[in-house]
Structure formats: structure tokens, C-alpha cells
């Protein structure tokens, strides 16, 4: 395993895992506590339209996905806030329309789309240098926005009504949060792929939530969890020659379930001790 680290592709893969962990750790916490997991799933799938657009225009599909996904998220946010269309209905439409556009765009694009599969399911071992740089820039943007607007996002997630009464620009922050989800999806596409993105947006945050009730600590723990998930998933997929994106997701889910199980056992033991000492 360790001799693999001297290869450029392996170093790139580790860098990609690290950058993915930062984005999904921070934004994933908001996704989980604000309960916008389903919306994020819709945004992730809609990004396929952007991949198709990239192929059609002959630009880097990840760049296409970035522009398209941010626009789709803003459109979704405005439609749900300004019209009477129920949110979950709107998610279904966003989800399918984004993918449908992607299929049409790819059909219209000249020639064959060779690495389409890696956008759908991710391949951490083949992340190009340009995409790594883009991931780094998006990470910086995400961290800067969250640090600057920390309390705005916290209040939006905790109590939107009181936020509005106190003058928090709740709707603008909500739209911005959807954009952050869109940017995170873009960061994660190369690592786990469009279809599996939602797992990395939820599992690290869900794991972190078991250990703290501070939002900041939850973000740091989720980043750490993300790093452990991507690195160990990468290692297992390399050693066993499995698909890297899918392996990362299965490792994450397994660790989460083990942790939930341990927590449950610990609580039951504590309760038993309490009843024993009371008796």
C-alpha cells in the first residue's frame, strides 16, 4: 500500500479525498440539521444536466456542472419560495429534469462521451489536476462564506421564523445555502459521482452529530470523519480492486452503523447501571 503513495495518481487521490471531506463536512452539517437531504439529492442529480452541457459546449464537464447546478439550485429555491408548488414535488421535478437535460445534451454533443461513467459513480483515482484546483478553490469559497455568515446560517437552520423577525435575510441565506450545496456536489462529483454524492453529504455529519451538540465541533468532526471515510475507502478499493466511489460510501455507511450500535449499547448499559444503583 505505502509504495503506492509515491505515484502521482495516488497523491492526487488523497488530495481529492481531503478536499471532498472539507466541503462535505461543513455543508453536510447544514444539510443534516436543516433537513434538506432530499433537496440536496435533487440538486446532486440535476448536476448531470451540467455535465451534459459541458460535453455539448466542449468545455470541462465539471465546470459545466458548476454553473448549471448553481443556476438550477437558485431556480429551485425561488420556485419553492415564491409559488405554491410543494417542496418535495419541486425536488422530484428538479431531480428528473436535470438528468433529462443531461441525456439530451450528451445526445446532441458530437462523438462519444468516454468517461461518462466516472461522473455518475466517481473515480477518485483519475481526478485530473485542473479538477483538483477547482475543488480547492470551491473549498476556499465554501469555508470563507460559512465563516463569515456563520450565525446567519445557524439561525436560518434553527429557527427561520424568529430569524426573519430579527432581521436575518432568511430567504437570501436559504438560496445561498442551496448554492453551497450545489458547489459541494461539484466538489464531490469526481470522488464519488453524482449518484452517490448524497451519502457523503449526510453520513459524516450524521456520525459527528452523535458526539457533540456544538455545530462548530460537529463540522470539524464531520471533516475528520470524511477524511477517514475517503482514505480508508480508497485504500480498500485499491487493495481489492473495487470501484472507489462505491467502496467509500459502503465504508462510510458501515462505520456509521457500527457507531450507532455502540452508542445504543452504551446507553443501555448506563441505564442498567442507573436502575441498579437506584435499587
Amino acid at each position, binding site marked *: 500500500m505505502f509504495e503506492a503513495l509515491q505515484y502521482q495518481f495516488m497523491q492526487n487521490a488523497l488530495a481529492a479525498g481531503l478536499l471532498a471531506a472539507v466541503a462535505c463536512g461543513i455543508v453536510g452539517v447544514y444539510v443534516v440539521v436543516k433537513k434538506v437531504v432530499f433537496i440536496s439529492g435533487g440538486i446532486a442529480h440535476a448536476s448531470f444536466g451540467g455535465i451534459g452541457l459541458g460535453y455539448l459546449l466542449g468545455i470541462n464537464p465539471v465546470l459545466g456542472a458548476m454553473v448549471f447546478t448553481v443556476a438550477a439550485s437558485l431556480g429551485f429555491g425561488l420556485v419553492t419560495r415564491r409559488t405554491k408548488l410543494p417542496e418535495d414535488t419541486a425536488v422530484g421535478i428538479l431531480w428528473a429534469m436535470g438528468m433529462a437535460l443531461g441525456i439530451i445534451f450528451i445526445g446532441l454533443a458530437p462523438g462519444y462521451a468516454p468517461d461518462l461513467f466516472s461522473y455518475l459513480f466517481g473515480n477518485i483515482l483519475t481526478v485530473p489536476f485542473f479538477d483538483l484546483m477547482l475543488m480547492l478553490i470551491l473549498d476556499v469559497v465554501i469555508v470563507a462564506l460559512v465563516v463569515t455568515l456563520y450565525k446567519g446560517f445557524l*439561525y436560518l437552520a434553527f429557527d427561520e421564523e424568529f430569524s426573519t423577525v430579527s432581521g*436575518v435575510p432568511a430567504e437570501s441565506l436559504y438560496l445561498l445555502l442551496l448554492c453551497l450545496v450545489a458547489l459541494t456536489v461539484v466538489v464531490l462529483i469526481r470522488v464519488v459521482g453524482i449518484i452517490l454524492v448524497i451519502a457523503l453529504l449526510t453520513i459524516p455529519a450524521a456520525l459527528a*452529530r452523535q458526539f*457533540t451538540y*456544538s455545530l462548530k465541533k460537529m463540522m470539524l468532526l464531520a471533516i475528520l470523519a470524511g477524511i477517514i471515510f475517503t482514505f480508508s475507502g480508497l485504500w480498500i478499493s485499491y487493495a481489492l480492486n473495487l470501484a472507489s466511489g462505491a467502496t467509500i460510501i459502503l465504508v462510510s455507511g458501515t462505520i456509521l452503523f457500527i457507531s450507532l450500535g455502540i452508542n445504543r449499547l452504551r446507553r443501555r448499559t448506563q441505564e442498567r447501571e442507573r436502575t441498579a444503583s437506584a435499587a
Partner: protein
Amino acid sequence: MTAKELVKLKNVWVHHDNIPVLEAINLSIESNDFLGIIGPNGGGKTTLLKVILGLIKPSRGTVTVLGTSPERGRKHIGYISQLNLFDRDFPIRVFEVVLMGRYNRAGLIRGYNEADKNAAVAALKTVDMLDYKDRQVGKLSGGEQQRVFIARALTTNPKLLLLDEPTASIDPGMQAEFYELLEKLKENMAIVLVSHDISAVSIYVNEIACLNHRLFYHGSKEVSAEELEKTYQCPIQLIAHGTVPHRVLREH
């Protein structure tokens, strides 16, 4: 201290999908009022509070808060919404919740300074919850959570407190304690609380109004059974409290 008019509603109508929720509401709240608004669920109680806060725009009529629009005037209002609306697992501490009240001083970008933190500590002392400041809000009892949200509303020195079903998630034993806190607060501000629980409200407030799409305002808390029936549109039991020496139970 002479009473000053804080809130005025003139012929306010609110429609939801063309169905009237509030009809021709006229209401005046003065700076020393302690008003209880009672009425059945779905009678428009929460809507009325949201109209005062500018969260819902009336389809007809005018709302004035401290001589200006609700959006401008609401910084002088402390709002305590129904407790059951928040996520008990949300990772946030008591002190962070109370600091939220200082948002309109600090704004979106600036962090909280000493003055903000002192205001939060003072508010927690007022509601007797300072010892709990590092606890997770969701892990407190209903009564304790209620106090935390009142503290949040107090950090801005409001002229008016609006409470939506404040006793719904407090166990009965704690209700007396809760109303004693309101007794203390009403020295410095007007208080309006809405509830479907007639008996609990009527002991403490100074005036009662009944709301079931229309507002029946009595100016005192002597509410007759007939008036309550008009509000609830069904025969009700009226149980008198306090100085009335016997219970009046009406037949169903």
C-alpha cells in the same frame, strides 16, 4: 406612567386560499396591557400574532406597530413561538439561543461583543436559567425551554411580548411558576398571550379577548358563558377561578 398605544389593527382581514382566517379585526394594545386571547384551534390566533409581526400581510385593513409598519416596528416586539415547532436534536446551546436575540444589534457579519453577551447573561438571570447556559436546548424540560425563549426575546428590551400557546408544553405543575414570571415581566412591558386553554389564562391576565376568525374583545376578564359559546360555537363548561366561591358547570 400613562399608557401608550403600541399596536393598532384596523379592520384587518386575512384570507388563506380565499377562505377568511381573520375577519374585520380591530385591536389596540397599550403599553401596560396584559391581554389573553383565547379561542379554538384553527381560530386564527397564531395568524393574528404573525400579522402583528409582519410575517403575514393582511388582505385588507391596516396594522400599525409603534406608529410605523410591522416590519419596522417589530424590533420592539419579543416573540415566543409555539415550542413544539423546533427540532429537539438541534445542536445549539442555551447561551447561543439567547444571543440570537441580539442579532438586530450585531447584524449579519459582526460577531457578538461584551455588551451583547452581558445582555444575554442578564436575560438568563431574569428568567432564572443562567446555570443552564451551556446545556443543549433540546435536552431541557418544556418549562425550561420556554424560559430560554423568553430570555431570547428579553435581550432586546422589548416593549411588547407576544407568546403563542406558552403553556402547551409545560407540565401543569410548572404553570404557576411560569405565570409568576410573566407577572414580574409585565411591570416593564405589555404582554399578549394566545391560548386555547381558557382556565389557565384567565387567572393571571388582566383582559381577555376571544378569537374565532372574529375578535370579541371584552376589556376585562369577565367573560360570560354566552360569549364563549359564540367563540367556540358549541356549549362549553365554564369554570370560574379566584374570588368566585363556586364552580359553574354548564350542561353539555
